[in-house]
């Protein structure tokens, strides 16, 4: 028994020793560059924002040795990798990591709303073509949902979930008479939503709020990425179960995606800020577009290059 206890104590002390490490930041260390993959809307928004648009769709122009991770992967890596740098949506930012000011402006909702924070991207929506629905009920509900997106009620929900809504004063109460479908019981109608996973949280909150206003229709969410917003609403037929009625993208639609899509079948619902993030021990608090570009294209390889500026 005593032996077992001794081994236990040893094991515990080992694990504790592994947990505690020094907290001094050594700026002669190389920067580990984290990025999302090329289908990510966050990546497109970030690279376009820092003036490095070539890196939005190609990995070849990035610094050697970069790491590709998803949103959660970048967040958890930045909690442990002292010398890493990455970027996430403002709505994901929490206190386990350090969000950097961009060009001297702190990443806050207020700064995005007053248009001083520069690194931001749009949240867009796209629906199927008129008439391309299983039933007129679904089409009318989709139209009502799109109208709802422009109201202050939807803006509240968007703001409540970390994104930044467009300015509006229209209330749902004042336009709901134009959408009689919302006055009946729609519990047996299912509307399928998809597209960007960065918008999933906002989109789910929006459909939950709108369902209560529109006869409790069922909203089915399946978010797979911004690229699927156009694909699954425009090119995939209704008979395929992955087809969507409404889908979202966390970037502007590309010109190739706008071909043949009616002006009324797409639009913007909100803004989202992108924040460059580093480990909490990192001494820097502000970063510029030029610095970020230099880090991501490999001009700056050590943290001292950034700090010395």
């Amino acid at each position, binding site marked *: 028994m005593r032996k077992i206890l001794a081994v236990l104590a040893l094991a515990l002390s080992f694990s504790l020793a592994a947990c505690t490490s020094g907290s001094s930041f050594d700026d002669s260390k190389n920067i580990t560059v984290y990025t999302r993959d090329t289908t990510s809307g966050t990546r497109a928004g970030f690279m376009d924002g820092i003036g490095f648009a070539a890196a939005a769709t190609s990995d070849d122009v990035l610094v050697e040795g970069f790491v590709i991770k998803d949103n959660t992967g970048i967040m958890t890596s930045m909690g442990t990798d002292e010398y890493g740098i990455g970027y996430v949506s403002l709505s994901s930012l929490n206190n386990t990591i350090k969000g950097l000011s961009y060009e001297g402006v702190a990443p806050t909702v207020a700064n995005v709303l007053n248009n001083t924070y520069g690194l931001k991207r749009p949240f867009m929506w796209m629906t199927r073509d008129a008439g391309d629905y299983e039933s007129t009920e679904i089409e009318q509900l989709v139209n009502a949902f799109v109208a709802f997106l422009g109201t202050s009620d939807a803006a*509240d929900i968007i703001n*409540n979930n970390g994104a930044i809504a467009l300015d509006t004063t229209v209330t749902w109460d004042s336009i709901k008479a134009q959408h009689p479908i919302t006055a009946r*019981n729609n519990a047996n109608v299912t509307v399928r939503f998809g597209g960007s996973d960065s918008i999933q949280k906002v989109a789910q909150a929006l459909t939950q709020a709108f369902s209560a206003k529109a006869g409790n229709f069922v909203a089915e969410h399946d978010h797979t990425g911004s690229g699927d917003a156009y694909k699954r609403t425009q090119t995939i037929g209704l008979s395929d179960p992955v087809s969507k009625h409404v889908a979202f993208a966390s970037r502007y639609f590309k010109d190739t995606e706008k071909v043949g899509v009616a002006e009324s079948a797409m639009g913007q619902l909100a803004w989202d800020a992108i924040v460059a993030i580093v480990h909490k021990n990192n001494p820097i608090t502000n970063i510029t577009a030029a610095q970020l570009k230099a880090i991501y294209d490999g001009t700056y390889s050590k943290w001292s290059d950034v700090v010395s500026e």
Partner: protein
Amino acid sequence: MLNSRKKKDLILQSITYFASFISLFVLISILLFVFLNGFKLLNMDLITHNFESTSYIADLKDFTGPGDFTIDKDFNDNTYYSSKWGIALTDDENLMGHTIVLVTYVHPESPFKDLRNKGVATQDLSLGIDYEIIRIAFNDGPSALSIQGAQNMIHVLDTKTTFRELEYSTSGGGIRGSIITTLYLIGLTLLIALPIGVGAALYLNEYAPKNRFTKALRNLIETLTGVPSIIYGLMGLALFVPITISLTKATGANLISGALTLAVILMPVIIRTTEESLKVVPDDYRQASLALGGNKTQTTFKIVLPSAFSGILTATLLAIGRIIGESAALVFAVGTAIKDDVSIFDKSTSLSVHIWAMMTDEPANIELSTTIAIIILVIVLSMNLSIKLISKRLLRKYGVTHE
């Protein structure tokens, strides 16, 4: 000579110490990780609550104006009370660890008790405790949002004399549906896999001729354990889902197709374990039974099978552990839609797929995932203990103690 042997012994001995130390270390770190991350969200509500939350939209009914609802009651530090409206709000966290504004007290005569439903249902609403307030909208000025906290919401309410719209919801995020699904899956899978697995083991050990073919069959079954479970999942999607759709009222992936897939995964484990326990039944038993005039079938089912009971229980236990832990195969064969009303003809998630769903959320909910992992650990542990207890009882009853 003696000295070098001593050295050798010491080295070998220390290797065993070292090996056990490493395994203990790994086990403890996993347990520490799971408990440190998941303990915070662990409570009874998580197990009993539904996952889906229902939203309500309401406004004031027959409203004349706010009154004076001063009460003599002490609230917590993070609870704020509006004596003008008779409502107390608290900053809290819901079951999924998200911050919310929770209703903790409503005065019996508060205007919030008498609300008009703005949705399609006609019945009136009444705000009670344990609802989450999402937003309160006003005709003049911006809305009070839950993200701004309870204090702000009460402060804004106190400056207004009426509001345009109140949006609130029941608290969701519970895993009740996933627990029920897991139990269904365990029951259904064992129902399918045990008879087939035990039957096959009986054939292989008692009836099959000892030739090349039997050996090849046994090797094939053992190879099956090495196939990645996601391949079984694809097989379930391609084979069992269409079969169950055509035979039952199911319209897509469902619990039956999931149980069938799991049964295929478990078959090799059950056959192997049962066969091992059949092998250790002493040949004396068989010969004694035959000598007393029993035929081959009677011997197999009345003498050998009951003697191998503890082995079959072990197989069941291993199977249950595998069913609870399996996620890759089930993502395809049962789907990833978290349901509160579980039907065996519909999609649903087991606890481990629930974890998968939480980890693919944006951003991943690591805390809730580890909380569910704790619950899985507790379920496996209690099943382990209860089955050991049952097997002890049964063994005493049958009087077979060949272990």
